């Protein structure tokens, strides 16, 4: 009933956003968008393919040309536009949370209080940076005056996933626009709706035409067209490691566009015997089950020190059994559905390999309900490092608990992965905290907390979890080209 009402009354324009205009796809094709809590179709959206990407690149390139409105604009004014966009998102936050919940299956209240707030804060943070991107004047050898300009890179392709559609939109648009780039953004085919609404707000805020272009569509078509486009200067991709590798290859084959990647993780969460047990159990639970397990940061390998292992497992199982799975719009719901039938099936298959490889299924393990793509919160104990469920990213509500003896052992086991996105350690002992956090090959290490993310803190992966950093000051350099200007001087003095 809710789906029907929203479909007919409140959805954003369901087409491609280029040059501040809504356009049908060149091919005329559309694709369906679903409500994963019910499996029902919400609506159809125009499907961008290569021809639409070409159009968008032209628009973005024109908007970036020397002398354009966007290039001539004061940096502080770019910041004002981003601040206005943040205000508009805040104005419409209940609406946006509703559509986000409907389209992605995320529970409504956390979406409103976490996702929307993070989206607004990220836009505001980068709004503040626009006129603070400093180059340098440099004491070079010789009779020269030298300084650097931090220029925008140019036309940036941005490909975002379905697990945090709004937040990922903000993480991408924020720094790119703050630095003065123009953008083509392809939202995930599962979750284009809130991103399209943001496009409407981009126009309302007053961004010049062509600065932001949104192309709903599929990875192998629109996404690949972006990655291999000869006139896109940079591509930023958040998604699976598997596709990340394709993006990097495409960049190498085409025009050597700059590439930043935020990929998967199989993140270790290390619990020492001296940890605050209540805190550790709850944080480890949220760490793996948040967003139905669909987080690149999921703490999906929980290493528990032997003396407390049994107690930890017992409490974790008890907590998992209490986790409320249900309709995203029910305010008591903690966990919504998985994003699609395909993903639900994949997670269930992982659970089966866990069982068949000999891990102990403590609770859950099955699909839940007849409609939608729900899975019971699932806990495995007695997990060995060489099992598939200990090595591969499941991206579902499945918790793996392992046992360790010594700090040296757990450091080695935690780092023994191609991934390196985040890690966490729970301990009261300052020395263990410092030792482990230094040793982890991970872009973020949490001490006595989990998923503590904030727009000021750089975030990104070691190894195959990606390259480059998002958020914080660090990410600005991913969206700038630094130009050194050296001028002959007469009679240089210090």
């Amino acid at each position, binding site marked *: 009933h809710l789906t029907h009402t929203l479909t007919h009354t409140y959805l954003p324009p369901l087409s491609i956003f280029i040059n501040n205009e809504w356009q049908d796809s060149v091919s005329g094709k559309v694709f369906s968008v679903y409500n994963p809590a019910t499996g029902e179709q919400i609506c159809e959206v125009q499907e961008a393919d290569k021809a639409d990407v070409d159009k968008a690149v032209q628009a973005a390139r024109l908007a970036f040309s020397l002398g354009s409105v966007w290039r001539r604009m004061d940096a502080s004014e770019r*910041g004002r536009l981003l601040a206005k966009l943040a205000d508009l998102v805040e104005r419409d936050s209940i609406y946006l949370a509703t559509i986000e919940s409907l389209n992605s299956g995320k529970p409504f209240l956390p979406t409103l209080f976490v996702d929307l707030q993070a989206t607004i*804060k990220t836009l505001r943070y980068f709004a503040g940076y626009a*006129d603070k991107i*400093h180059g340098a004047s440099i004491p070079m050898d010789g009779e020269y005056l030298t300084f650097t300009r931090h220029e925008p890179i140019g036309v940036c392709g941005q490909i975002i996933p379905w697990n945090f559609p709004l937040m990922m939109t903000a993480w991408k648009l924020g720094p790119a626009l703050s630095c003065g780039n123009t953008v083509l953004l392809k939202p995930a085919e599962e979750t284009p709706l809130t991103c399209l609404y943001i496009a409407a707000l981009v126009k309302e805020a007053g961004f010049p035409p062509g600065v932001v272009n949104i192309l709903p569509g599929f990875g192998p078509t629109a996404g690949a067209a972006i990655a291999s486009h000869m006139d896109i200067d940079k591509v930023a991709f958040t998604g699976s490691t598997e596709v990340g590798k394709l993006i990097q290859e495409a960049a190498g084959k085409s025009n050597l566009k700059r590439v930043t990647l935020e990929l998967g993780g199989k993140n270790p969460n290390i619990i020492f015997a001296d940890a605050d047990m209540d805190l550790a159990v709850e944080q480890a639970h949220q760490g793996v089950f948040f967003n139905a397990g669909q987080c690149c940061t999921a703490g999906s390998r929980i290493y528990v020190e032997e003396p407390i292992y049994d107690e930890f497992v017992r409490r974790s199982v008890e907590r998992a059994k209490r986790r409320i799975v249900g309709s995203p719009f029910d305010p008591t719901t903690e966990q919504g559905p998985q994003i699609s039938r395909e993903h639900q099936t994949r997670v269930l298959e992982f659970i089966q390999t866990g069982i068949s490889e000999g891990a102990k299924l403590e609770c859950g393990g099955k699909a839940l309900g007849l409609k939608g793509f729900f899975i019971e919160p699932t806990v495995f104990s007695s997990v060995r490092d060489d099992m598939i469920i200990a090595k591969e990213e499941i991206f579902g509500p499945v918790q793996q608990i392992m046992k360790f003896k010594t700090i040296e052992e757990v450091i080695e086991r935690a780092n023994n992965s191609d991934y390196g996105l985040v890690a966490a350690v729970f301990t009261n002992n300052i*020395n263990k905290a*410092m030792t482990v956090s230094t040793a982890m090959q991970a872009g973020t290490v949490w001490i006595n907390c989990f998923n503590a993310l904030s*727009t000021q803190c750089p975030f990104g992966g070691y190894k195959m979890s990606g390259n480059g950093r998002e958020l914080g000051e660090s990410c600005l350099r991913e969206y700038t080209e630094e130009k050194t200007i050296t001028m002959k001087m007469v009679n240089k003095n210090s």
Partner: protein
Amino acid sequence: MKNFIFIFILPALALSAVCCLSARGTCAVVAIRVSCHLFINNEWHDAISGKTFPTVNPATGEVICQVAEADVADVDKAVKAARDAFRFGSPWRRMDASDRGLLLSRLADAIERDAAYLAELETLDNGKPYAVAFSVDVPMVIKCLRYYAGWADKWEGKTIPIDGDYFCYTRHEPVGVCGQIIPWNFPLLMQAWKLGPALATGNTVVMKVAEQTPLTALYVASLIKEVGFPDGVVNIVPGMGPTAGAAIAKHMDVDKVAFTGSTEVGHLIQQASGSSNLKRVTLELGGKSPNIILSDASLEDAVEQSHFALFFNQGQCCCAGSRTYVQADVYDEFVERSVERARRRVVGNPFDLKTEQGPQVDQEQFNKILGYISVGKREGAKLMCGGGVAADRGYFIQPTVFGDVQDNMTIAREEIFGPVMQILKFKTLEEVITRANDTKYGLAAAVFTKDIDKANYLSNGLRAGTVWINCYDVFGAQAPFGGYKASGNGRELGEYGLESYTEVKTVTIKVPQKNS
């Protein structure tokens, strides 16, 4: 004491008056909606002594209203409030940095909402033309506050690869209770330049506003409360320099003082810090800024910019281009055009939108400037135009130009702070750098030329905190501003402006085994 000359008087906390100006047939009516009291702990207080002082409309010489006058005891009260707001665990100390930024942003929004009123009040109290207050001063205030709002959660310490088995990082902590003493030439803007960085970095403030122009700052205080700054974070005490200002400068529980004003008082502030608790001191003082016009400059542009450089804000700018050095080849034509331009300068009622120049801020400045004009004539400078009083009431002075000025004349060495332009002749670049730098001041300088080598040579050689090339008085919240030598120390605006409001704490933790 209430002002009986004007019509409406409201009791209790707000003192309200209607003011009518008439000059050249134009009448402007401004209702005073500001509370003319001390602002401490988000509340309005009378002075403990009960004393008040009048603030005057310089266009007419008439009193606008009475304002509570802070003295030592009131400063003590304000410092206590600021200290309490800064205590460990207070709402202000516990607040996310990004939320401090959001409060500054909201303050900017509120000022933008009330821009027309604030510009009127500024013009009434200071005399600057309304068109300028509205289109320059107020927008710059808003931009400054928004700029610093953005810095609040971006002012990062570092982690440092120290030798040994240690983990080392720095925290950028607020300094603490900051005394801020601001002048009367840009009341709103100076308040924003001070509050922006201080609040972004998490300090609390005791601000003494100039006795000539307290009104707009007090109105902003009501907005500070409205948008939700916690009690005691900002305290505003109108009062006199030798009493309230001195009390701040020598207070044993104020951690830092920032002063903008004359070099003469700057010396006193620094001494007071030394003889009290060694509070950190930053100073933005006077200037006698050289504006250098080379013979290849675009002359029409140079004349107009040089005119603006000196006469803007009734000549009441610390960075006024008050020594205009013109290369010999173009000297005569430059002087002739400058005189013609000065004669065309429209002096009048600040509320008249055609007015370019309003009155000087008070009787004291008015007398001082006329005194300098006399000295100039006496010492042999050539009075080309102006030189006298421009109206029979208020503090208006004619735009005045002196030619054939020599470096050793009083009007070439001392800061006049009025609409009096000095034009001097030079031959070579080396000569003009030496002459331009031959001053105790070093606030700003400018060069007008098309030649890239000359521009670089001069901008390198001039000992001044800001050098403008082919422009003048170009400011941005992003660009640091401050003085060399006796023009002050420290920088305001830009990222640099955060430094003097920060204490850096190094934290070094022993670790079992350091790895890179």
